[in-house]
């Protein structure tokens, strides 16, 4: 983002004649049957093995294309195999209790994924290690003014909030420091304002994954110290979502070097801005291979991690008391008489909304 600001501003500065334009550019022929296999082993209580199989989808669609396959199994370095059952279209999932005699998920062990498709394509990953996780110490929050680039390239300033993590990167018993990845969700309260006079007003708790603009990975081995402090894992403009309180839930993961490289490349790809000094996009690395066809186009990654959760409550007063989400400024109903904002008419309309207050919500 900074690079986009800089390059755009320079060009504007020199002549105020530069442009960022959306264009229609025909995509080259795709790889219609290219598979995407994403899987992970999450050490927890219980541990979970989750695999998602889909096909690439093209630009004319935003629909996922899940694919069922013939076999999904995981092997540990001792040759123990665990078959993963289907849990939905293209989804394979199994929980492994601690101390399970059939298959154990342990720190220091390595695991491999094996997938066979219905048309006979076979894929193996390398053996991915499972590392221990340094426990995060704390989160902090601050409000700041930031320069924002609009779609037309113009610059403006907006108030934003950022959440920063403090954690060690030491892994007990290991020389290498941890490679960390953070997933971030936010859960915020919304009191809806249904249009009907007799419709009950509900208080819901909405959860959203906000990694999109906040994918962060850090290699502890690239740091001067064995700590990561004041590292921003979440940043957002202050909106009405903060109006009734919000919890930012940070899931810290310790991943392998290969997985770290995969996510580093994903981050580079999704944050591309067209800066003239930007490296070109490329094919994301994968640890999946088809031994029968080395040129097979396969995407995705399989890796192991453990994660810890740390949360931070953001009070509306801490972020300059933005107005609540509901009712929206223009009213619950728009000119056509339809609901202007779905969650304001019914806060349960959100995909991950619940009436039950999360157990961690103490505010």
């Amino acid at each position, binding site marked *: 983002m*900074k690079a986009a*600001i*800089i*390059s755009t*501003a*320079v*060009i504007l*500065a*020199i*002549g105020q*004649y*530069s*442009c960022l*334009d*959306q*264009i229609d*550019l*025909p*995509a*080259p*022929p*795709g790889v219609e049957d*290219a598979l995407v296999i*994403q899987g*992970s082993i999450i050490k927890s209580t219980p541990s979970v093995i*989750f695999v998602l199989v*889909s096909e*690439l989808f*093209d*630009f004319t*669609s*935003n629909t*996922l294309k899940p694919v069922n396959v013939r076999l999904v199994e995981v092997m540990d370095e001792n040759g123990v195999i665990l078959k993963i059952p289907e849990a939905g279209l293209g989804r394979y999932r199994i929980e492994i209790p601690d101390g399970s005699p059939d298959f154990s998920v342990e720190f220091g062990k390595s695991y491999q994924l094996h997938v066979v498709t219905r048309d006979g394509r076979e894929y193996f990953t390398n053996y991915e290690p499972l590392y221990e996780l340094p426990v995060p110490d704390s989160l902090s929050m601050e409000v700041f003014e930031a*320069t924002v680039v609009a779609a037309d390239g113009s*610059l*403006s300033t907006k108030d934003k909030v950022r959440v920063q993590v403090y954690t060690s990167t030491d892994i007990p018993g290991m020389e290498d420091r941890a490679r960390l990845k953070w*997933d971030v969700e936010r859960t915020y309260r919304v009191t809806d304002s249904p249009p009907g006079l007799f419709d009950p007003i509900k208080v819901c708790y909405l959860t959203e994954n906000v*990694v*999109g603009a906040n994918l962060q990975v850090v290699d502890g081995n690239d*740091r*001067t110290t064995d700590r990561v*402090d004041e590292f921003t894992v979440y940043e957002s403009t202050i909106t009405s979502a903060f109006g009734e309180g919000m919890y930012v839930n940070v899931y810290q993961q310790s991943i392998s070097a290969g997985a770290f490289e995969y996510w580093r*490349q*994903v981050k580079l*790809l*999704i944050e*591309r801005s*067209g800066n*003239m*000094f*930007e*490296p*070109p*996009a*490329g*094919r*994301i690395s994968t640890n999946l291979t088809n031994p029968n066809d080395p*040129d097979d186009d396969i*995407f*995705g990654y399989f890796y192991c991690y453990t994660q810890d959760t740390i949360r931070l409550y953001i009070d509306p007063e801490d972020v300059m008391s933005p107005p609540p989400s509901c009712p929206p400024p223009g009213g619950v109903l728009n000119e056509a008489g339809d609901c202007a904002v779905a969650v304001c008419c019914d806060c349960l309309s959100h995909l991950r909304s619940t009436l039950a207050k999360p157990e961690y919500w103490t505010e």
Partner: protein
Amino acid sequence: MGNTPERLCGFLAAMLLTFSAIAQSDQTLEISGDFADNTISEVLTSLSDQYPLTFYYDMSILPKEPTGLSFDGASLTEVMDKLLGQSLLGYISYRDYIVVIAPKYVMEQDFGADYYQALESSINEPAGTSGETTLVIGDISQLGASGQTTLVGTLFDEETNEPIIGANVTIPNLDIGAVSEIDGTFELTMPVGEHILVIRYIGFETYIRELKIFSDGNVDIILERSAVQLEEVTVKADAPDASIEGGQIGVATLDVKSIKKLPTFFGEADVVQSLLLYPGVSTIGEGATGFNVRGGDVDQNLIMQDNGMFMNSSHALGFYSAFNADLIGRVDLYKGNMPAEYGGRLAAVMDIEMRDGNYGDWSLKGGIGPVSSRLSFEGPIIKDKMSIIAGGRVSHADWLLKQMKPPEVQNSHVFFYDVNARLSTRINEKNTLIVSGYASADEFDFNREFGFAYETFLAQAIYKTILNDKWYNNFSITGSQYNSTQFDYQGTNASSLDSDIQYLKVRDKVTYQANKDLRVDAGIESIWYKVNPGTQEPLDENSVVIPATLEQEQANEAAVYIQAEYDISTRFHINGGLRFVNYRFTGPKTVFEYEDPESPDDTEIVDSTMHGSGTIVSYNSIEPRLSLRYKLSTSTSIKAGYSRTAQFINQIFNSDSPTPTSQWQLSTQYIQPQRSHNLSAGLFKNFKDNLWETSFEVYGRYIDALFDYKDFAELVMNPHLETELLPGIGRTYGAEFSIKKKEGELNGWMSYTLSRSERQVEGINNGNWYLSNFDKKHVFSFVLNYQPNRRNTLTFNFNYSTGRPTSPPVGTYATVEGLVVPAYTLRNALRIPAYHRLDIAYTVGKGYKKDKKIQTSWTFSIYNVYGRRNAFSVFYTQAAFKQVQANQLSILGSALPAFTLNFEFL
């Protein structure tokens, strides 16, 4: 004339006709006198005083003793027989009154008709009687038996005393001619006698003289400037028929004068922008550093100012080139095929020759534009002996930034400057010393968040010696340093990244001009490189960046070469040479050992070795060079060429354009030198007495060793850079067509290039051939000048080029977290939109009075007249669960007017 002591008569001064005219005339003379106490010389003097006789002889060959003779009514024959009878001398009588005395063996020689004709001419009008329109060269006494003579001349500009290159020197009555060389010299062989010498050069009065030449001789000729000039006089690089006559294929010589009339970005005349109008030369767009020649990378071009190499040839992130057009004398661009004296780059050589300062008069010139200004001066420190030329440019763009609305832009800063100085000293007529220097700096800062700074320093000394009329020597020593820094001021990543490259180059070139047909150059050069690839430092206490320094690298690149230019006949010219290069990568340096040295992987390091100073790895390169020209007629020639080139230093970048801080990387045991074969052939034809020039050229380059970058290569501060590179091969080929009208009220040129540039690298695109980053299938340029008189010039310039390749995503997938990730497969499988642009410039220039002390000109230009939004790059954006969207970044999206004032104080 006559038998005066000054009249030396060579041994070859003998008579043609052994006719008996002597006898007849002899009968009429009766010679009497007592010469007993006189020497032969005194006798001859006395006889010529008393009688109608003329004697030719060399004083030194006559005996010095008194003759002891007296005569009473003796005939001339009797007198001569007695005078010379006791010596080894003989004599011949010619006509009735001429006697030539020479050693007897000379009398036995056969002399050509030319010789006697010349002798008669000298007799009729001997030297010393020439009028103002007559040039008399040589002495009959020095004339060879063949009767042929060689005239060697040097042409000088009356005003500047600069040698004049490319003037046409002809002897119309003999239908022979020559073109003056780079040092102003010409050479013609002709029979003795009377001829007409005609010298023509644009901007100068035609020089016509009656020439009387009796033997080999030298002459300096001063050409006067025209009283009324149709165009500004500069040292013109081309003779009118240079495109036909020139022996080197693939060379483009820039008309320095026309640079200043082209419409340019913000009104600043630019050498590189002008080169882009030539076939085979392109760029990825405004704001890109460098240029591409025949599909090659920007770092595959050797850019030289005199003997100094430039590592960064642009200012302001590529908007301006580093060269001050006011100080340039000549620019040659060798595309692919280059003479053996050049090497070290695969694609091209841009050789910029600076001007000497005026040895006669002082002058000051400059220009003021909207974002940059320039000033230069030149003149004699010691008249005709020592001159200086110096100039500088500076930007002043901050005022423009402060007009912008966003405070961050107002707080930003852009600046550059460059200065050149050249001191030329004519130590004597054979020795010249030139000392020159260049310094430049660029700064860019965005709101104290991010920035670049880079600078170049270059100093050189050149010593030119004329050993004799055939041997010349040119010795030079050059030192240079390029430093660059990238700043990141913000947050926990606040850091600076420094890199630099230094070199010292020593070069000696000897030229042997055997005759007008054969010239041989031989030379040796050695370059010592020292590279600091990167030093990263945190900028403040909050930064978490680890201070790190990559090890310094050093290498030596030494070359010897020999090349010959030979006119086998008037039609067939050959320019061939051989260059041998030895490159050594030296320590001290830590070298890593990988499990698979052929495919280094930083996760597979097995060991490391600390090498001391000394050679770690060396490479040799044998590089033949050949260029042939065959003239089908005076207006048509075909040319062909081949060269083998190697490159031992590369700029590391995988972005669209190199950043100012892109490091220079020397070849190592893992990073092999890049090598190529270059072939080209072409047909060149002029029309209407060289008014129209056309050319059609085809070329091919096969790169048998290159590297490309892995996907997501980490190139910054990487001590294992070799693990990010993949070896491969490449090829470029194409055809270039150009047509040019050189003079007239309406003039200009058009060029078109059809080409392809591709690579094959294991690990990229499944090992299949793919387009290189600089492939542009079609490139078209059109320049039209309308110049109804000296003062006014209107110039149109249109460019079109195919969009260059880009890598598009072929699909997307969603992660568990909801991220929509674009999936890329093939590199460079798509093209960005095509580039085209129209520019206009109108110049109101200097008047007709050349003696006016202050001269000004105004240039009003519009760059990108119809506001074309040319894509610099294309990138794809997406949001969760939304379609991927293609976006283009255009550097310029509107017309850009500029108004520039140029002035000159004479």
